């Protein structure tokens, strides 16, 4: 697997937004790869920059107000260097997205059939001119082929009664059906890379579970790579081959799924896992105190230090370097470095410390 070039390779990606409160440095130097056929998850709290990272990958950020830096290499091409029209051809053809909110991602005034058939017929043809469009729009063979394709996909995502769903408006469907509809929509053009933004997260537990097993089956049946975003570590563990833990716009730790849940290295990962009773054996009241940083004025040094139970002066003064733990695992914490004398973070120790730890209040020592 590691011989071939990865399907997606993101290097030193940074995204910032010019806002009223100043410049918000939302994604800072993210490196990540997705191999052919691999399922990779970016996990982290709400507001850690995971959605913005994927939007930068798909080119859906408006620049300005966004400022994007770094390289996004897809199948050997740097997407950031590609001319706009070539870039657009990839979207919906080789790269597709399951958007986060099924209700708001479906146009309320068109039927499911209309939207999905258009996606099947015109997806990935961002450059079709006005004449070409009309020629194909009124070609009934094109249209009915696209319609067949949509019905096939709706069957594949186990949509109940696909024919009548085609004639329904999004507001007439249940949350689970809408979720299935947008999964079908994302898969219509057989993408090589599927980006799934919090799939099923808005659904209740049983439907969420059904959607996850649907995704599991789709992953098994299809030859595609998936980059998934979730705040739910259970989802990450269930579906993915490899996990990136993101905090404050940076990658804190990455490792193959089994490794990261068995032996997390980064204090933040350890804290996350310790917060989940099912994963850590017993519950830890309180979780990780504090909240994600303000991006207009992020903490100096390690961005996690105000909430980290191991933090000391050195965490504030220098940014931690990645320390490698085998071929695919690395963690960005100063405690891993050889020269550091502090305690090595372990799951048990982190748990103990977190239950006693008070996060540094936001404005404290801000002027120092």
């Amino acid at each position: 697997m590691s011989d071939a070039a990865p399907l997606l390779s993101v290097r030193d990606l940074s995204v910032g937004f010019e806002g009223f409160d100043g410049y918000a440095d939302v994604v800072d130097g993210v490196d990540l790869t997705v191999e052919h056929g691999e399922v990779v998850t970016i996990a982290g709290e709400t507001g850690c920059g995971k959605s913005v990272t994927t939007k930068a990958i798909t080119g859906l950020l408006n620049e300005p107000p966004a400022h994007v830096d770094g390289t996004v290499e897809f199948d050997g091409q740097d997407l950031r260097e590609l001319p706009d029209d070539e870039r657009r051809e990839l979207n919906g053809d080789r790269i597709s997205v399951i958007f986060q909110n099924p209700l708001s991602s479906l146009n309320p005034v068109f039927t499911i059939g209309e939207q999905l058939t258009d996606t099947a017929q015109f997806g990935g043809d961002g450059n079709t001119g006005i004449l070409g469009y009309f020629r194909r729009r009124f070609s009934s063979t094109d249209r009915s082929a696209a319609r067949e394709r949509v019905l096939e996909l709706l069957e594949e995502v186990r949509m109940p009664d696909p024919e009548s769903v085609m004639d329904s408006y999004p507001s007439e469907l249940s949350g689970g059906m809408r979720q299935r509809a947008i999964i079908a929509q994302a898969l219509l053009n057989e993408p090589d890379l599927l980006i799934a933004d919090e799939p099923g997260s808005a659904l209740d537990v049983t439907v969420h579970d059904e959607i996850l097993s649907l995704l599991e089956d789709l992953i098994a049946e299809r030859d595609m790579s998936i980059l998934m975003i979730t705040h739910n570590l259970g989802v990450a563990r269930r579906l993915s081959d490899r996990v990136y833990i993101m905090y404050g716009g940076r990658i804190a730790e990455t490792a193959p799924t089994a490794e990261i849940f068995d032996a997390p290295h980064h204090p933040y990962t350890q804290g996350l896992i310790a917060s989940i009773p099912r994963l850590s054996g017993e519950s830890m009241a309180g979780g990780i105190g504090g909240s994600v940083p303000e991006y207009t004025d992020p903490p100096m040094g390690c961005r996690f230090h105000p909430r980290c139970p191991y933090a000391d002066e050195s965490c504030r003064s220098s940014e931690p370097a990645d320390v490698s733990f085998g071929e695919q695992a690395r963690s960005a914490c100063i405690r891993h470095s050889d020269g550091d004398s502090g305690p090595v973070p372990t799951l048990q120790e982190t748990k103990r410390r977190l239950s006693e730890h008070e996060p540094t209040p936001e404005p404290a020592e801000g002027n120092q």
Partner: protein
Amino acid sequence: MPRIGQILRRLSGMTVSLLGLSVLIFVISRVLPGNPARMALGAMASDEQVAELAAEMGLNKPLPLQYVDYMRRLLVGDLGQSLQTKNSVAHDLVTKFPATLELITLAFTFMVVFGIPLGIIAAKHHGGILDNATRFFAFSTVSVPSFFIGIVFQLVFGYFLNWFPITGRLSSAYSDEVVRATGFMLVDTLLSGSVAAHVDAWSHILLPALALSFSGMGQIIRITRSSMIDVEGQDYIEAMRGYGLPTWMITDKYTLKNAFVPTLTILGLQYAWLLSGAFIIEIVYSWPGLAKYGVQSVLTSDVNAVVGVTMLVGFVFVVVNFVVDLLTSYIDPRIGLAGESA
């Protein structure tokens, strides 16, 4: 589909508002200052004559009875007699209203045909030169009163450039050969088979219709632009971009339909507002429509004519709003008709 039931319910609601409107207009017309009988007969008439006419018109009966009488006659299309023209009000309306309707319909067409595309262009070039130019145009047309635009048009295109006639509906040279079949000059001239007369009718209606359409056009541009920009920021549009649909298809199909709902609401209101705007433009262009008749009837306390004109305007208002409601719920299935929570 419960559509038919919804439409029926809305229709009955419309009837109720028309009834309420008729009561309101009737009462207001009866409390207007001035004795209609005296106004009709003139200052020279004796008090007996005035009292006699008042009795004949039913003006000495109690108000509710007068209303019942009025409504009974209204149902058979009798709006009473105009004291001013001595014709039946219904006849007067039928002869005057088509001219006004033709004018506002053309003005409305201009509003739609120029306003919506300009709004879309402005939204597409959001923040650019085209956007600012369009917004400047829209802002100017909204803020300048229509009679001023009308007079400027007359001066520039009629007087200085001499491209268009500045008053009337048709040159007198053609008035004999045109048969008044529908009351719409653009149609009648065609029916009479005279191309020259048809062109002449266009040259007469163009300036007043354009002047009339301007302020509404500015509104349409502004609302179309802002709702297009609003819809473009929605998740479902981003999703369509993510799926790589042709960019202009996203604009013209997936953005426009959503953005059209607020525009449609404004269009409905504008159509009815055009009626009141037409009253002013008709005076400026000596357009033989409802305006002069309406103003005269108010000034002379011609009650039947006042009630007739006001009822007609109100009727158009209510019908246009009904149509807008239907169209809106057709475009956006989430919007039920009034009284429904679909």
